[in-house]
């Protein structure tokens, strides 16, 4: 579904991604893991058109999207939940959802109802301003807003950032549900243990390169991954 081949991203003289390749197949959840500064967010910024790659190709559903602009992705079928959620703070929950359907023509009221079924809390808050929601609610709203565009591929940037463990678990359950409803998910996460339990496959990044890739179950028990990214977290959780 998504094929990324030998992509190099530079910020001026600094090379952030040294030719990475990965792919995402329809119907799976793929997690991209790595420490701070490994290049995860750059990868996602590149995938969502916020930063164009200097070299390499990105193919989505057989179409070359390497130089596509950020605002064109939604219409292509790629939804993006940006880092830090970035909901519209001064629009109500409902207006935020309506904005999510901007790239689409036609009626979207059914989609809003569907989001309220998936995220009942948003229905309770629907007249509230986005900026007044809690972090977890904002994350749900950001995901719901991206789903309003009916994407076939959903990109999630650090969905667990700054959220309480209980909320993170809830968000991850929702992500699994989204996959089960037929949307492919690509998630960038720092919380490796939890992300791997959710994902089908995983890629591990270090210094702008992909260092391992395997099924999530294998990565979860891989001693190298455990040592570096999971540490004692595995025993703890």
């Amino acid at each position, binding site marked *: 579904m998504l094929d990324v081949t030998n992509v190099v991203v530079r910020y001026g003289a600094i090379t952030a991604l040294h030719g990475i390749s990965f792919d995402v197949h329809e119907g799976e959840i793929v997690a991209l893991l790595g420490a701070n500064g490994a290049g995860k967010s750059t990868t996602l910024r590149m995938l969502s058109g916020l930063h164009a790659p200097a070299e390499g190709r990105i193919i989505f559903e057989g179409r070359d999207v390497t130089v596509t602009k950020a605002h*064109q992705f939604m219409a292509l079928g790629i939804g993006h939940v940006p880092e830090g959620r*970035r*909901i519209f*703070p001064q629009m109500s929950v409902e207006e935020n959802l309506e*904005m*999510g359907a901007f*790239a689409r023509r036609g009626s979207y009221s059914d989609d809003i109802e569907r989001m309220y079924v998936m995220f009942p809390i948003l229905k309770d808050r629907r007249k509230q301003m986005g900026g*007044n929601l809690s972090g977890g609610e904002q994350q749900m709203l950001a995901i719901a*807003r991206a789903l309003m565009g009916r994407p076939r591929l959903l990109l999630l940037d650090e969905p667990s950032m700054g959220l309480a463990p209980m909320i993170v678990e809830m968000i991850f359950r929702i992500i699994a549900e989204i996959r089960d409803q037929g949307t492919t998910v690509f998630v960038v996460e720092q919380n490796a243990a939890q992300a791997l339990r959710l994902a089908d496959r995983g890629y591990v990044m270090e210094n702008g390169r992909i260092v391992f890739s395997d099924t999530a179950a294998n990565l979860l028990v891989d001693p190298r991954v455990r040592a570096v990214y999971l540490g004692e977290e595995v025993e703890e959780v």
Partner: protein
Amino acid sequence: MITWWRQPWIRRLMTSLAVVAVVELMTGPSGSFAAPTTGLIGSYNERVSVYGLFVGRRWMVFLVLALAFFGVWSAWLRGGPRMRAALRASTASPRDVASRRPVRWGFYVVLLVVAGFLPHLVNDPYWQSVLVEQIAVFVLLALGLNVVVGFAGLLDLGFVAFYAIGAYTTAWVTGALPTPAPFDVHLNPFWAIPVAIVFVMVAGILLGTPTLRLRGDYLAIVTLGFGEIITIFANNLYGITGGSYGSGGTTGSHPIPHFSIALGPIHYRWTLAPVPYYYLTLVFVVLFIIGFSLLEHSRIGRAWTAIREDEVAAESVGINPLKYKVMAFAIGAASAGFAGVVTASQSNFIFPATFTLQLSINVLVLVIFGGMGSIPGVVAGAVVIQTVSMYLIHTPPAGFQESDLYMYIGALLIVTMIFRPAGLIPSRRRRREIVLSEAGESHADEVLTGDVA
């Protein structure tokens, strides 16, 4: 017990004295370095004569003003929350807007009827021409700038450029410039309206496409430069624009004609008299208000709001920021272009000296004062500020000079920003934000930073 001079009321009193002293010093009749205190205590001659002490009474005016300022301030602190609560009760609960709509429409119809009778109510030639030249035209300019600043959140400091382009286009197509008119016939200004609007919109697109990639301060500086460039062109391209003499300066040039209608049996010609121009402009003001309100609640308006609030998020939902920003520039320019047509036709001659940076700033003040993003707000802001300005110029209080005008307007703006940070009539969205922030559900700062930036 706090030291006496640290008590809040003493501080308020001292601040009041200081503020009024500064205002008095700056507005006093002397303004000279030799006698800097004249504004405060009167000139030497005034002081030595008994007449001056009791009739000149500058210092008494000073004390009264300072105490009044202090009194209002204290009263606001004491009763303010209650007053504000009462005010909010009368305006709040945004979700009721739909149910109150008939009342609202009724209110607008009443306003329109009042506006219709206004020139006869004021019934004074000065105020009638003010209604056209200073109020209606500035309402149009404020409405246009509101699209750019209020809806799309782009700070434009060179809005005067579009006004100038509208006026010069009118002069051009009616054959009043040294540049030959594009048609053999010198057009009726009615035909200048579409031409001018198309010209300013194209100018908006030409300016916007390369510059709207910039953000915030950078964009403000570029637009400032654009405004200046247009003024300099008007001033210096003698053979094209008539230079600093304006449209009437060259031999063989003739005045920009008035509007006229010759439609079958209907023959009507506008003249220098302001009232017919007032009605003509009023019709267009209403049309622009309706058009811009529809836009505000349209898909385009929502895209503007989204870009204003978070550009990255807007892109992530599929909004092309550049496209919608350029649209805001072009659409906002339209009403300024029309204002240019009215100004040119009504005054018969145009001069580059009309189109100054000061005018851009003035229009921006109207928008901020009235309430960015709020159409009723910017209309009210334009009416209030322009009326105050013209009143001060028409009936200057003792010691007032025309050059002091913007000091008073500046003070008015500062006071408004302290007590009504979102403007005179904030937009529904902003009002909702303020209600929420005062209920402690969000940060007041959040409310501010979102839109002002």
